[in-house]
């Protein structure tokens, strides 16, 4: 099993874990964290192919940096949204936020 395979397997596993978190956890915060985890899995793919891929181009590395930055922004906004939702509904269960009326 080559390191590349290992990386891809890990990223796949992480992705699925995050997906599960997104799908079955009721708490909005955990869902957001799951999304973060999925993003990380994607980053891992980029790095893996940058390192073990067919050479050429640091684009993978650079892209990971950008994706981390954007992930941070996404987390900040997401948490802010969670807080705002909580102020409205007094709850952060996603199932409760099923109406468009605020």
């Amino acid at each position: 099993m080559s390191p590349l395979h290992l990386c891809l397997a890990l990223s796949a596993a992480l992705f699925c874990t995050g997906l599960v978190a997104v799908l079955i956890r009721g708490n909005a915060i955990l869902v957001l964290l799951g999304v973060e985890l999925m993003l990380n899995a994607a980053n891992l793919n980029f790095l893996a192919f940058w390192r073990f891929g067919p050479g050429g181009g640091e684009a993978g590395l650079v892209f990971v940096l950008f994706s981390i930055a954007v992930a941070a922004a996404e987390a900040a906004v997401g948490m802010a949204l969670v807080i705002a939702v909580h102020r409205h509904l007094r709850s952060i269960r996603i199932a409760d936020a099923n109406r468009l009326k605020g």
Partner: protein
Amino acid sequence: MTTLLAVLALICLAPAVAAVLVRNLIHSALLFVLAWLGLAAFYLALGAEFVAFAQALVYVGGVSMVALFAVLLTRPGRTDLLPPPSAARAVGGLAAASLVASMLASSLFWSRLPSMEPTAPIPLRRLGELLAGPYLVAVLLVGLILTVALIGGLLLAAPRRPAEGGDA
């Protein structure tokens, strides 16, 4: 090399799985942090020093803080134990996730990847030149996005009267 990577992979996968499964909100948040740290270590082993440290800094220093802060601001109740997910949702979710998992696994094992020599890690200065050179526009855009996100976060999380709580 591979063994080291494997160990690190386990170190970063175990807490992630645990984080998804435990019922205590704070615990799972902290476990997520642990998973991210493990991932940072994995990056380090991959030779991506800068990315690894950036990962640690952003996720452990930033995202986890925000997440924990949100948790504290929106305490469900006396205890942080969450109600167990409803059976239907759990089953459906697991089914869907397993589908994806099988897909990924199949594509992984059926596709024969040529195992190549690892390319040499690039010196930090080169990375800096890349960011300041060809990727400059992207860097500026990301900075813009971050600023907007910060302001938007403030506006969203601020109480109706922006006079107070505008900071923090």
